[in-house]
Structures are given as structure tokens and as C-alpha cells.
């Protein structure tokens, strides 16, 4: 069974249509990339799955359970067991690394907060930075803190919205490989939004190519590279 199922989803902002009657299934445990150019609607899909937006029509099911219906959020974001890495990472600048990671654990009234934080900091190699503020970390370290902050809550799914977009090419490759190695050790479904097809080919088990709010093609990286779809061919040639 698909962990995420979008059925005939449409979404507009004002009079501008962003998502146009999309249906898709995402398999559990896979690394799925939503690939498309800026403004294609991929971030909106992520936000709809997270429950941060309402759809104009269609349904969203998580693990077979209906969570979004036309203009209604049936299951709030906080109960979807989803981690979200925003493009700007959204690390709270007034909280230290430790406090950023502790935030969610405290809200969920989890036990052994300090032990859990120490473990995840250790895992990501961030122990020495625990008392630093986000602006005192490098771009790469900030990425890791954002991921650690999400993973410490043991979500079933991690949604990542172009988390490497603001890094230079060299750092991007390094962090991408590092993240891939680390995340591989967590049994988790990942939906990753990117406009960079090289990144998608490197990371994904499954790629969904989106253009103007519609799905152009889906398949493994190999399938996409061989795609006969005109848009996909042009897009990956750029």
C-alpha cells in the first residue's frame, strides 16, 4: 500500500492554478524525488501532504487514511508523523542547536530528552555544536541540525523542500552524499523536492517529473533518463 496517495488534487492561489488534477502514489520506504522547474507546483504538493495547505479539490490519503479533502484538513499537520525540511531550513535563530532539537520532544512530552538529543547529535557529528546558535554554524552544519531536529521525532516520512538549494556546488555534493549515507540508516520514506535533475538521479529510488502543475512522467532514475516525454527530454538535457 502507498504511504501517500494523492487523488485528483488541484490547487490555485488566487486565480493562478498551481496543481492541476494530480494523482500519484508514493511507496513506503522509498526515496522519491519531485523534479521540476521553479513554479511547477512541487513545493505545493509537499505542503499539501504536510497539511500546511488545503486543496481545492481531490483527496489525500496517508497510510490509507483520508487526511485532506476539498478545502478541509481532516488530520492536522502535527498528527501526521511527518518531518519537514524547509528550503530556508527554518532553524529558530533564537534557540541553540540543543534547544532547536529539544523543542519537538518537549511538546510531545517525551522522556529522556537529553539522552535522545545527545544520541542524535552524536550520530550527526554535532555534539560539539550543541550550545551554538544557528548563525554560528556553517551551511552544511545547519542542514544537519535541521535533519536531526526532524529525525529525533521518529517521523514516518521526511519531506525535504530543496534543502541544498542555497549551497555552492562543491558543498552541495559533499552534504548530499553525507545526508544520503546518514538517512539510509533510518527506515523512513523521503519525498525530496528539487529542480536539479543530477541531484534527483543521485538520490532517488523514484522520480516524479512535474511541469505546470501536472505530472509529465514517473519512474526510476534510469526510466526517466530514457523517457520519451518531450518535456522530460528537454528538461534533463538542460
Amino acid at each position, binding site marked *: 500500500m502507498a504511504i501517500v496517495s494523492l487523488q485528483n488534487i488541484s490547487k490555485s492561489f488566487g486565480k493562478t492554478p498551481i496543481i492541476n488534477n494530480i494523482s500519484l502514489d508514493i511507496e513506503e520506504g522509498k526515496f522519491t524525488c519531485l523534479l521540476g522547474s521553479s513554479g511547477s507546483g512541487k513545493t505545493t504538493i509537499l505542503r499539501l501532504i*504536510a497539511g*500546511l495547505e488545503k486543496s481545492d479539490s481531490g483527496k489525500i490519503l496517508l497510510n490509507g487514511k483520508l487526511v485532506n479533502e476539498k478545502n478541509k484538513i481532516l488530520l492536522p*499537520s*502535527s*498528527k*501526521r508523523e*511527518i*518531518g*519537514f525540511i*524547509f*528550503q*530556508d531550513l*527554518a532553524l*529558530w*535563530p*533564537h*534557540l541553540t542547536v540543543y534547544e532547536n532539537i529539544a*523543542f*519537538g520532544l518537549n*511538546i*510531545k512530552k517525551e522522556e529522556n530528552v537529553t539522552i535522545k538529543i545527545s544520541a542524535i547529535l552524536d550520530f550527526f557529528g554535532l555534539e560539539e555544536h550543541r550550545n551554538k*546558535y*544557528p*548563525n*554560528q554554524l556553517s551551511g552544511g552544519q545547519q542542514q544537519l541540525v535541521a535533519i536531526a*531536529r526532524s529525525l529525533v*521525532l521518529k517521523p514516518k516520512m521526511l519531506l525535504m523542500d530543496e534543502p541544498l538549494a542555497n549551497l555552492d556546488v562543491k558543498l552541495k555534493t559533499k552534504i548530499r552524499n553525507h545526508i544520503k549515507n546518514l538517512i539510509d540508516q533510518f527506515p523512513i520514506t523521503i519525498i525530496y523536492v528539487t529542480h536539479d535533475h543530477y541531484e534527483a538521479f543521485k538520490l532517488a529510488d523514484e522520480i516524479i517529473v512535474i511541469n505546470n502543475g501536472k505530472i509529465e512522467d514517473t519512474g526510476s532514475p534510469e526510466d526517466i533518463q530514457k523517457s520519451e516525454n518531450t518535456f522530460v527530454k528537454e528538461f534533463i538535457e538542460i
Partner: protein
Amino acid sequence: MKKTIYIITIFAFLFLVIFPLLTMVVSSFFKNGNFTLEHYLYVLNKGTLFLLLKSIGLAFAVALIATLIGGFFAFTLTKTNLPMKNIFKLIFLIPLFISPYIIAVSWVDFFIMFGNGKLFIYSPFGVIFILSLIFSPLSMIIISSSLANLSARFEEAGLMMTTNFKIITKIVLPLIKPAIISSFILVFVLSISEFSVPAFLSVNVFTTEIFTQFSAFYNYDLAVANSIVLIFICVSLLLAERYYLADAPFLSMSLKSHKVKLIELKRSKYFLIFIHFSYLSLSVIIPVLVLSIQSFQGNEAIFGKAFSLLSVNIINSVFYSFTGAIFLLFFGFVFAYISEREKIKSINLVLLITFGIPSTVLGIGLIKFFNTPILNFIYSGYWIIVIGYLGRFIFIAEKLISNTIKQIPLSFEESAKLMGASFFLRIKKVLFPLISDGLFGAFLISFIFCLGELGTTILVYPPGTSVMPIKVYTIMANAPQSLTSAMSLIVLLITLIALIFLFTGHKILTKQKWSLD
């Protein structure tokens, strides 16, 4: 829960401020239950039309002078490497926070001390002179915020082709034109609505006429008809510039700006420093100095007498202004949040229109609405003054807060939401700590503006609730000038103390280990 707070706040504001104004507008078209335009015929008499034209002419002159002066200093303080420009920028803002009538009293003192200028100061020219001094900093803020947001790249691209002079006239000026026009309109509206300065200088204009008709002749119909004419002028002007003014990007505690291209001053900098010091003398040093000299002249006991006469009013003023600032902070925050996070921008327009309502007109609207047996419990206590403050300054408070919220990415709150944080927890743990400097600034600026409010308060204040500006205004006619000056000096000192709190508090709050960048 979030929506309940929105609804309660919006309805409270509609009830307290908007309904009274609407009731006044609607009632002006009825007499004994029948529709009539009779009240407006009063406005068409020669005397009233003359006053209206006089007010328009006066406001036009102030808007022109203030925009020219403000524009000049905005340019020198933003676009040049003038020494000490940050100090000038800060001190030039002071007149904006001092109650206009205090500056009027100090300049009256100046002309009394130097003899023959009394005719000038007690004339429309005196009003123009003082209002220009008061509103020039506003023009400076508006135009300099526009200049500061002008990317250096635009000018650098121009430099490849032409001279500095051409770049200013052909690139910079056209790009900041919206700010110049907005500055002109805003100052025009504020000047035509201004009551305290013409009242203190005994210059009869449209706002003082409304006040006189209402409070001296009890001619409510004429006062209301005149008010509606003034509302019409102010609101239509503000609506013409609504896209820029409703957003008011210049009303911010910490503006993010682009890298600005600076003009290197050579020998001209000495001349410009002289000009800046001269203006500083006119706008700040002379008023403070003259008030101090006049207060202590001849009789040292006068200051003590002024203090004892004002003591109750000081307590009232501080208490009401504090309460008003808390209300402004609450309403301002909720409206700013609705505008910025729920993207309901129409709220800005409503608040802008409220801001354009002249103070005396708001006062009349509040009296008409609350002076009824059912609502008398509000009208008979100090709450009516607090409601007046709310109507007058909510636009400023909301803008200061919303421009701070704008700088905090929505994703900060969304990531907390995904972790299960409730609306209140997100506000408390994520948003408030990040905008604490903006909230503090909005609170203190609201407090300072409430302290100096006269136009609405003088109409609505019930017995036993007199505040500092009213005391100074009412005692002026029957007391020696030195007593009025001493009282004004006390009010000025209280305002300056609040300003010092504002600057030091803001510095402390923004001095932290973390940063948004």
C-alpha cells in the same frame, strides 16, 4: 481558538472605532428620521468655504516644504558619506515624537524673547513653519527608506553610460517618485487634520472650527457636516496612494536595505555639516533651550508650581497612555498577524482610513456613539480616552509590528506547527522572542503618541480625567507664558525619558548572540 481571537478582536475594533465613525457619517444625512442634505448646505457658506480653502492652502504649503526638507536630508543622510550621519538621522526624528503643541509653545517663547516676531508666530505662516518642522522627519523617513532600498546596481549600471547628475535625475528620482508623492500626501493629510498647533497659535482653521462649533456653540450638525467634508478630503487622498501607504514599509524598527551606492563628499561636506547643525538647532536645540530659559526666567518657583499643577495630569497621562499602548499592542499584533500570516490585506486599508480621520472628527464620532444611556459606563470613565488612542494610533502600531513580522519567515512557525506546537505556543516560543524588539518599539512609540494626543482627548475626556496636553492647553489663556512653558518642558522631559527608554531598550533587545541572517 485562533479564529475566535481574530473574530473577537475585529468585532471589538469595529464596535469601538468603526461603528462610531459610520454612525456619525450616516446620521449626517438624516434629520428627524428623514433623509436630507441640509447639514451640508451649512458648509457651503462663504465663511466655511474660506476656512476650508485656508486649511487646504496651509496643508499644501506644509506638505511641500516638509517633503523638500525631508527629501533633502533623506538624500544627504542615505546617499552620501556625510560624517556623523547616523547621529543626525536619530536626532532629526525627535520632533516626530514630541507633541506638536510643545514645539508650538517653545517657538512662541522664542518669538516673545526676541521681541518682534509675535505677529509671525500667531499667524498661518507660524503654523506652516511649526508643522513643517514637525513633519519633515516623516518625509525624511519615507524617502530615505525608499532610497535605502534602491540597489546600488541600478546606479552602477547607469555609471557605465552617464554622469552622477544624470543618474540622480534620470534613475534615482523616478524610482523614488512613489515615496515622494506618498510623503507629500501623508503630510498634507496630517497637516489638514492637525488641531493642536493652530489651536495653540489661535489660528482659525477647519479643525479648530469643528471644535468650536461642537464644544462652544453646541452646533452638532455643522460640526458633523464639516467633519464629513474633512474625512472626504483625507480619505480620498489616502486612497489614491493606498498601495504604498497601506503597506507603509517605512514604519519599521529595523529596515533591511540593499547595499546603497554612496556619493563621496569632498569639500562640500563642511558646508553640509553646517546645514545639518543649523537644522538640528531649529528642530530640537532651540525648542528645548528656549522652553528651559522661559520656564526658569525671573522666578525659579514657577517650575515647582507647574509641576504641582500638572502632577495629577501626569499620573493620568502616564496611566491612560500605558493602558492605551497595551491595547494598541494587542490590537496591533492581532491585525498585523492577520495581515501578514493570513494574507488578509484589506485590514491595512481599513486602518489607513482610520488613520486619515482627523482627531477632532474621531472625538465627535466617539461622543455621538458612546454618549447614550446604555454605553454611558464607557463614556463616563477614562476608557473613552483609551478608545480615542486606539482609533488614532492603531495604524502606526499595526504597521510597526507587521513590518517586524514580515521579516520572520513563515516556515519558522510552520516547522513548530508540524511538531505539534499549538497556536499560542508557536506565538510564545517562536514568534514573540524573534519580534520582541519590534513589539517593544511599537509599545513605546504608541505610549509616546498617546502622551501627546490632544485633538480627540480634549473632546471626549470626562471630568476628573484631564491629561497633560489638556491642562497645558486650558491653562494657556489665563496663565503667564512662563507657566505654560514650564508645563510644556515637564511634558517634553517625560517624552524624552520615554524616548531614551525606547532607544536603550531597543539596543539591549537587539544585542544578542543569535541573528536572523
